[in-house]
């Protein structure tokens, strides 16, 4: 927390930048702005515990205002935590060391839709669903539809290297971002030109994508657009085990078929999320597929995928489970009575690995996490030609808060350790935040020193989102 003199000086000067109505030091506002969708934060709030609070919340309206605020913060050595929609699940916007929460929600303009190049230029504070609906009206989709779409925004997508439910076809946000505008700790504005590809040295924007506010504040982006698919077809196949389902997925991609949705539910996840609506055999694994595009293309892709699945021991469930998932895909984001009762906490470790390692990562993580008396269920989603992601979902409930938080940490520690030991990477799309911060160095290995040195050059005073991404702890 800031001393009162620094806080007072900072407040006065920031008022001259954004106006008195767009900065607050009120404790109630800082409490309401403190948390994102991190399950541990939410569980602590339910248990009546307090979270770290910012000293000030600032709501800039333009890149110029962001730049001026950062210059002031840098001069006074005040931490700055950028806040987008506040929908991240890893505590990335928690103001661990107080300071300024720089909330970008007022920067909410869709600036330009370029029909010729199929691009949209957009400010960082636009909420995902607002952007998607706006481009839908013009006949496009961003192809980026994470479950958090109603609550997350463009800046948050890019800051966390987010992935949507159809990333197998359309790509993740790092694939979708062609141009980027960011502001560095010293207030300088960096613009990375929107071009489809280039050969002019390293791709600077990729350094900023996923930097989680530790290197810059993202203020604007130019994103790719796709024509709304003329048709979206669904198909579901039940496999006797994870192995045969994964093998079918691998072969589907090997045939050059790119489904928009690929989700293989393990026996536990199938039992919980599929068997209540469809008659599935105990221990089976449901694969949900979707195909986007022109009718002829979709028909061919679906036919090839179905043939591969059947050859690998699948039972055909038609469109049912897959379509049902699609129509209820946001439902799982809502809290339930069961998951919020007592000292309960659940979370997801969304890892990623290549096909040669994926199954081993799954089994080892599951074993490590279940050792803490956690309920663990998983699905393989966001699949690609070379591998994919696993959602390792866990839930634990204890008699008191400290036992619950301790179990939660143990599951994370041992789950991530198992993932890294088996050659996986600890996050596919959720990011690092506070949850994974202490594992970052182990994940990056020798490369972490490069990241740390970049951080020291771009943010020598360590004001940018300290305590995240394994960097910038303050004394």
């Amino acid at each position: 927390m800031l001393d009162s003199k620094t806080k007072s000086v900072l407040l006065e000067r920031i008022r001259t930048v954004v106006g008195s109505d767009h900065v607050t030091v009120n404790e109630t506002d800082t409490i309401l702005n403190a948390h994102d969708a991190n399950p541990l934060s939410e569980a602590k709030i339910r248990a009546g515990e307090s979270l770290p609070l910012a000293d000030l919340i600032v709501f800039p309206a333009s890149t110029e205002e962001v730049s001026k605020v950062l210059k002031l913060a840098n001069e006074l050595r005040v931490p700055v935590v950028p806040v987008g929609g506040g929908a991240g699940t890893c505590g990335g916007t928690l103001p661990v060391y107080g300071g300024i929460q720089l909330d970008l929600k007022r920067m909410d303009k869709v600036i330009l839709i370029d029909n010729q190049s199929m691009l949209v230029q957009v400010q960082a504070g636009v909420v995902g669903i607002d952007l998607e609906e706006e481009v839908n009206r013009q006949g496009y989709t961003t192809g980026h539809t994470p479950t958090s779409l109603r609550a997350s925004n463009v800046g948050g997508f890019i800051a966390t290297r987010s992935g949507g439910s159809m990333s197998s076809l359309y790509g993740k946000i790092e694939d979708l971002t062609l141009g980027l505008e960011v502001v560095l700790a010293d207030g300088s504005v960096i613009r990375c030109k929107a071009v489809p590809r280039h050969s002019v040295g390293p791709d600077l924007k990729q350094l900023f994508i996923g930097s989680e506010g530790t290197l810059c504040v993202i203020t604007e982006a130019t994103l790719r657009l796709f024509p709304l698919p003329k048709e979206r077809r669904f198909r579901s196949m039940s496999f006797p085990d994870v192995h045969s389902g994964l093998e079918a997925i691998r072969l589907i991609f090997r045939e050059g078929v790119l489904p928009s949705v690929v989700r293989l539910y393990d026996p536990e996840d199938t039992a919980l999320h599929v068997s209540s609506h469809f008659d599935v055999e105990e221990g089976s694994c449901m694969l949900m597929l979707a195909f986007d595009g022109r009718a002829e293309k979709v028909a061919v892709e679906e036919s090839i995928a179905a043939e591969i699945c059947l050859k690998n021991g699948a039972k055909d469930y038609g469109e049912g489970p897959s379509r049902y998932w699609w129509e209820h895909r946001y439902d799982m984001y809502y809290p339930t009575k069961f998951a919020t009762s007592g000292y309960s906490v659940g979370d997801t470790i969304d890892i990623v690995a290549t096909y040669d390692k994926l199954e081993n990562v799954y089994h080892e993580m599951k074993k490590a996490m279940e050792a803490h008396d956690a309920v663990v269920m998983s699905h393989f989603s966001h699949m690609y030609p070379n591998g994919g992601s696993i959602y390792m979902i866990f839930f634990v409930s204890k008699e008191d808060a400290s036992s619950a938080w301790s179990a939660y940490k143990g599951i994370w520690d041992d789950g991530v350790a198992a993932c890294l030991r088996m050659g996986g990477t600890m996050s596919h799309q959720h990011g690092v935040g506070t949850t994974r911060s202490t594992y970052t160095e182990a994940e990056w290995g020798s490369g972490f020193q490069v990241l740390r040195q970049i951080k020291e050059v771009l943010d020598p005073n360590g004001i940018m989102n300290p305590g995240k991404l394994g960097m910038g702890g303050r004394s």
Partner: protein
Amino acid sequence: MDQAKTAEQLRLCAACPKMCRHMCPTFLAWRSDSPTPHSRSLLVYQEMNGTRNLDERAIEVLYQCLECSQCLVWCLPQVDVAAIVEDTRTRLVEQQRYPQGLDKISSMIATNHNPFGELHSKRSKWFTPAKNVGKKIVYFSGCTAAYRENGIAQSTASLLTKLGYGVSIMNDEWCCGSPLFRTGFRNQGLEEARHNADVLNKQDAQEIVVTCPGCYRALSRDYPENGVQLARPVIHISQLLERHLDELKTADFGGLVTFHDPCHLGRHCGIYDPPRRVLNKISGGKVVEMQRNRENAMCCGNGAGMRMLFEEQARVIGKARVQQARNVGAAYLVTSCPFCKNMLASQDAEGLTVLDLPEIVMASYHLHPKVKM
């Protein structure tokens, strides 16, 4: 709502990653996480479990709510934030901890029985009795039509007469109590309610018709829920007009008509189709829907004390709603609520004619001089 149910709802909402926030009009107006459904629940949850008392800012946040219930439409666990907010406001008023800006509305209703501070003796000045021997009906005009939107009141009386009703108004109509119920002054609202019930129950009429959805909700829901019984059925003008579809005229309005669903009429009372059927008939099918319609219709920004306490933000919401009508190419933005009409018409509505339902129906007869054609 009982305490256990409230506690469960608060716990669910306080744990939610804000799945309704993008639809909340006050989030649109402030672009901050404070005036949002989740934050309102979190504040009450923290107070309930002893984590933190409601301070002055928390109380302000609880009054930065339109009680429009848009959030409920997007809530899978069906957490009724508007009801929680209203119950909390009622408690705050009992504890004398409400925003002082509300004293004005409370004292004006206590003195003049309307929230505008107008003389009670002038309440019925708009009304000219007409001789008619048809079915007797009493028109409860409500404060806004009586004092600010006389065109609605006059159109309604003319229309009812034209349809063959013997129209009367109350001998001594008081505010329905809606602004008081919604802002937490429940007991004061019930004083108004009891007076209205006493008078209405003695009135010689078969039905009570209202044009204001706030009045409709108060008379048909709040009154009976609080033990105040009306002896005759209450009907909204849109429902009454729907009965007479065959008698309504079709006219060429020279442009598309769109309908703004008032929150009290739509989400709170479930009346969506009657006004649309009426508009469809009188316009010859020239009705276009805004993208946000029916249960997803955006509030006009005028509800639950918002315009009185936070006028600038209320107008941001009203202006956005007017723009939504423009986006679909409408020439007429029609609502069925004097309060909504007053807000929407006072925004930058250039190129749009904002009318209430009885006004546009009368326009189809080319009888009412106030309507610009």
